[in-house]
């Protein structure tokens, strides 16, 4: 039980410490230390879950089950590697004069607060607190995105705040309706919003209210996932913030939104019995994959391109969960894990590449392999992995999704084939000249920290070829639980 306090306590305490010491030289190391502390705490938590299954904490307010335990570890691990990556990155940014001490303070404190909100959202059992944590995560990332204070970052942050704020508000309305339906069944002594209680009693919830609630929740959390009609904030927010922020946004925050959506889907499936939730998710998921693929072919800014690639992958994941069934759910969970690993690895490589070339426009980055093979190869392997080339993990989950889609929803496969083809053509067409060919990029003073990149790619490769048994057991239990 106590490890959960550490898991949540360390980042909170870290953000407070960094508020005062954020601008000092050692701030970067402190940030890494706190992230490392969180990671150790989550590892202990995972060991606990492995040994004695799902556990409650603080009179059932917090709940760890197979669905969120691997996400917690993943969040803290990627948080740690991003912190390690942001050490050299921020030092170079400070030398370029883009990061003043004050902004560094905001960056470091908000970074830790952001990981606190994410861990809170994952571990909480209360749907209300889940909403509050999501809203808090949005607030912290707004500050992180606007940390450069340029016109573009301000615009991106403003749009991000307004669009996500409105979206999340719909989710609040959905939570209210959910609470209303729960109150009728569980009564009002405060346990009505706990997901486990709702889960046990979901059959008796009133279908009318739950349908409406799910509609609002779907639009709310769908905006945070970046499904297509509500995706407009995502490319601006992910492209304008500093690269570590983009990595964390693309890698982790989207997973949390999908996690929240899954929690609601489980309740709705139980209450309705009809696959309405699944069809909604499938429709919007497929739309996102196709539209994002076509967006990809018009990009000029490297970070915007990979932001759209995140939309495409989130669409694919939502489509997989929409299809339901043990294999598709399993594939969706695997895809979430591997996507966040590979996408953050790409953003690390992109970060260094953009710093070397001094620009984010892809036309000016050429011949990375000649200047620094590690950054070049990191970006090439990363983009190949994200495009679903084996032996990386993304291919494993795409394999499962496509083959089940072929038999269960054959109508969807031509769209998927078109989208994956166009996406591959677009992304690879731009990455290849950047990595190969004659170079115009100058070397950097500080050696880039590329351990995170290859650590992530190694894990992605491992997940493609061998999935550890306990992780596989979690995926199976979670897949059965999501059902549908």
């Amino acid at each position, binding site marked *: 039980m106590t490890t959960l306090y550490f898991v949540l306590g360390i980042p909170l305490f870290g953000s407070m410490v960094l508020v005062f010491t954020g601008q000092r030289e050692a701030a970067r190391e402190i940030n890494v230390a706190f992230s490392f502390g969180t990671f150790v705490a989550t590892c202990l938590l995972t060991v606990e879950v492995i040994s004695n299954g799902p556990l409650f904490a603080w009179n059932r307010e917090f709940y760890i089950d197979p669905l969120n335990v691997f996400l917690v570890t993943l969040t803290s691990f990627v948080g740690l590697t991003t912190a390690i990556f942001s050490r050299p990155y921020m030092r170079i940014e400070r030398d370029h004069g883009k990061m003043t001490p004050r902004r560094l303070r905001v960056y470091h404190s908000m970074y830790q607060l952001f990981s606190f909100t994410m861990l809170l959202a994952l571990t909480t059992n209360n749907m209300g607190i889940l909403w509050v944590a999501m809203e808090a995560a949005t607030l912290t990332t707004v500050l992180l995105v606007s940390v450069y204070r340029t016109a573009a970052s301000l615009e991106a942050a403003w749009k991000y705040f307004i669009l996500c704020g*409105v979206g999340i508000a719909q989710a609040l309305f959905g939570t209210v309706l959910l609470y209303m339906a729960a109150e009728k069944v569980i009564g009002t002594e405060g346990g009505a919003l706990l997901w486990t209680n709702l889960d046990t009693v979901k059959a008796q919830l009133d279908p009318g209210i739950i349908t409406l609630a799910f509609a609002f929740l779907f639009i709310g959390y769908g905006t945070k996932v970046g499904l297509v009609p509500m995706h407009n904030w995502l490319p601006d927010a992910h492209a304008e913030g500093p690269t570590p922020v983009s990595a964390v946004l693309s890698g982790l925050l989207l997973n949390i939104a999908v996690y929240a959506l899954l929690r609601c889907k489980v309740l709705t499936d139980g209450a309705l019995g009809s696959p309405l939730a699944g069809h*909604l998710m499938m429709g919007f998921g497929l739309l996102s994959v196709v539209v994002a693929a076509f967006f990809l072919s018009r990009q000029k800014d490297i970070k915007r391109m990979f932001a759209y690639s995140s939309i495409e992958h989130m669409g694919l994941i939502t489509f997989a969960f929409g299809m339901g069934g043990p294999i598709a759910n399993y594939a969706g969970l695997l895809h979430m894990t591997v996507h966040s690993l590979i996408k953050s690895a790409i953003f690390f490589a992109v970060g260094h590449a953009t710093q070397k070339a001094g620009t984010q426009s892809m036309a000016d980055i050429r011949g990375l392999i000649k200047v620094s093979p590690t950054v070049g190869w990191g970006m090439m392997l990363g983009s190949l992995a994200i495009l679903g*080339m084996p032996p990386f993990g993304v291919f494993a989950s795409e394999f499962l999704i*496509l083959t089940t889609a072929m038999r*269960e929803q054959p109508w969807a496969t031509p769209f998927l084939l078109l989208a*994956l083809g166009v996406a591959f053509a677009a992304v690879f*067409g731009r990455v290849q000249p950047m990595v190969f060919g004659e170079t115009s990029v100058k070397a950097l003073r500080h050696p880039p920290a590329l351990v995170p990149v290859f650590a992530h790619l190694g894990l992605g490769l491992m997940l493609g070829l061998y999935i550890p048994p306990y992780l596989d057991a979690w995926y199976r239990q979670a897949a059965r639980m999501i059902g549908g």
Partner: protein
Amino acid sequence: MIAPHGGAVDPTRWLHLDWILLVIVAWLLIGVAGVFALRRLTLVARVLFPAGGAFGLLLFGVALNSVWSSPAVAVLPIGLPSLPFHFRLDSLSAFFLLIIGGVSAGVSAFAAGYFRKGEGTPPGLLALEYHVFLASMALVVLADDAYAFMVMWETMALSSFFLVTANHRIVEIQRAGYLYLLVAHIGAIGILLCFGVLQANTGDYTFANMRAQALSPFWASVAFLLALFGFGAKAGIVPLHVWLPEAHPAAPSPVSALMSGVMLKTAIYGVLRVFFDLLHTPLWWWGLLLLAIGLATALFGVVFAAVQVDMKRLLAYSSIENIGLLFAGIGLTVLFSAYGMQPMAALALTAVLYHVASHAFFKSLLFVGTGAVLHATGERNLGKLGGLIRSMPWVAWVTLVGVLASAGLPPLGGFVSEWLLLQSFLFAPGLPSSVLDMLIPVVAALIALVGALAGYTMVKFFGVIFLGQPREEKLVQARDAGGWERLGMAWLVGGCLALGLFPVQFIALIDPVTTALVGAGLGETVDDSGWLLVPVAIERSSYGPAIFLLGVAASFALAFLLVRVLYHGRLRRAAPWDCGYPWQNARMQDTAEGFGQPIRQIFEPFFRMERELPTPFDAEPRYRVSVGDHFWRWLYLPLARAIERLASLIGLLQQGRISVYLLYSFVTLIAVLVVVKQ
């Protein structure tokens, strides 16, 4: 590590699959060793590549005597938890392993001598990609479940992509690599979907389960079309062939030898595995479609090969032609087995498998030959070569063997497979439907025309490069092939000759494969006819290559001796006859464009030609004709433009105005609420 199970597996039998996996692991280790010896060229060239070649030879040996044995299965613990990698060695995969082992042994030996100076990527990395490429090809042929197959299939595409873009400083090579990987990836998704159909909703992706599924004709046809699209994209059949003439020439020569010789065969393996093993109830119209596509590809390939100016593009187009012939043969086999004529199907399938083997050997020999020429002269354009038989006699004579085999001339392997294919066409008139009967002679005529045109192309290829006078000064001091290169070439020449002169023994190797796939084989009739290849009956048709060669050699020797004895052997050297015009020079020889001119004239509609004709007032008039491909203008460019337009249309979605974005989510909310209300 390997848990063998499946079938009554006696202890000695288990050895073959184990040896083969040993070879594959050895290749991977050599690759990893290459990474550590990144810059040390001599270590990589003198140790790693020969070791790779040796293991290729070992694979060749093991596959040779495992063709007859019963299938062995192995399961590796890696892969998805519910689906570990299954590997199965049956006669079909053993046959293809035979080819992979044989060709890779020769090409690796050649590569040991070829990579002299740094070519863009460090040699160690090249060794890694090269050996991963070999290992993945071998594993593709061994894979026994959809996931393992797909992982190995795309690793093969990925490693060959990195090899194609070895010296990525040249932009065209980057573009060729990009096109290649794009088409390969889309093809792979097609194959993935085909496996999705084949697993018929059971969720079990092993081939054993797919064999047990009885698919409805509709789903079987969907699987067929997807497999045709997927494997066709890798093989390079007509609408999907545009990447092949770009990618193969761009790769370093040993790699293009492996790609043309062996990688295209994995696509044929895929087609055979899906059509005959997994679907096992072919419909007749499948055969017709395959026949049509195969012929179109063959004719298209050979006509374009005849007009090429770059020697490696010429060979790439000739690979397309041979793939076309293979698809036509497979089409005929499907047609026969759809009508239940198993012995005829076995004959056609034997022709296909024989051509797979002989094409693998002679095409890699030709590519390796051009590699030696490229290294000695640094020139790829036929207009700048010529007269190399004097400065590079060894390479010239070796390439001559490859040229004769590729042209399908009697004593060599190319002719045997063409002979078997024409024989199978002759029995075709037994087909029940009269329309097909009418069609078969026309198809046989086209195949004969394609064979003859292949001869035309090969004469042009050999004549313009090796014979005549050198068109550039620097060609005179071109060095002949080095020691390792000669070893590699000698092995491949041996392969071509063996395939040409000992068809009976080789068909005995093919027999278990045809019995496994089509239920009948030529084995017994062929065995007891000794030196003569008699597919069906002696009075019906027979062909004895050994006697054939002996006949020609005997009359050669006899004529030579008699002339020396009866008359004399005096000889005098003088200037060639110049018909009274003393200033003859090398430029007056027939160029590659010239040699292709009749083909451009006769097969005009095939090409999209732009001519640059000089005006009368030009200071120095220049005539240039560029031969283009209709598919680019009528299929690929419109496709790209359509995607571009659609993308710009969708681009409007992100206009930048926040109120518009809010409107989108508002409308979506209302829409969802309306939908949900019902």
